[in-house]
């Protein structure tokens, strides 16, 4: 399996839109969509945890050719906090309760659309990484905060000044 590609992100966007999945790109993959120049291996999605949305998610994942067994689909439907998928055309992390963000609706109200991709606000991405406080997050935070400053100077979407 190779690196996550733009066309695969487009497939997520298009299939999830068709199925009505409520989700946001989060983590470094979200920051990259907002213009942050860095490298990452993972595509991380913050998914709304509701029965209807999780059902739509499972349907969408199968359309994207993720090979979900019935047991695996049930785990997603039962509402786990975190699901790691490496059984499809690309790796995908599904986060239902990211550290540092209280509710999906809060993040949704602040979210930004980039070429049709729904993305968490950069401040939420940073808040989540700060709350997680892993070594790899600690290393990326200074650069992310500098990018936030740059983004705000440009009057990036969702910035107040």
């Amino acid at each position, binding site marked *: 399996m190779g690196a996550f590609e733009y066309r695969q992100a487009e497939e997520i966007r298009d299939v999830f839109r068709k199925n009505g999945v409520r989700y946001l790109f989060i983590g470094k993959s979200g920051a990259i969509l907002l213009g*942050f120049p860095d490298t990452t291996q993972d595509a991380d999605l913050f998914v709304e945890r509701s029965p209807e949305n999780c059902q739509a998610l499972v349907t969408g994942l199968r359309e994207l050719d993720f090979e979900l067994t019935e047991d695996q689909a049930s785990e997603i439907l039962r509402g786990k906090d975190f699901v*790691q998928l490496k059984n499809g055309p690309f790796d995908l992390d599904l986060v239902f309760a990211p550290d540092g963000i209280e509710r999906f609706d809060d993040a949704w109200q602040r979210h930004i659309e980039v070429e049709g991709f729904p993305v968490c606000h950069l401040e939420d991405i940073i808040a989540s990484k700060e709350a997680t406080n892993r*070594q790899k997050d600690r290393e990326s935070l200074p650069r992310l905060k500098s990018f936030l400053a740059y983004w705000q100077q440009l009057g990036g979407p969702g910035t107040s000044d």
Partner: protein
Amino acid sequence: MPAKTHPDGRSAEPVIPDDWLAEFESAAQRPLKTRFRYAFIKTYKPVLDDAPFRAFDTMESYRHWCEENLPDWLGYGRV
């Protein structure tokens, strides 16, 4: 690299390091499709990449699993 502070040390206003600013400005000129190609890489991550599916009831249980099972150098341990 940490963000610089103003020389007088008074202001909390972040100053963007020059090399990072140059990278941000260059990236802003690239289309999203190109930024994707530069950003996403794939290397094997031991243990993490060895199962097709994992699900965790809570983020805490996921973080704990990472700390117990992944090599430290992957950086998934909490500080």
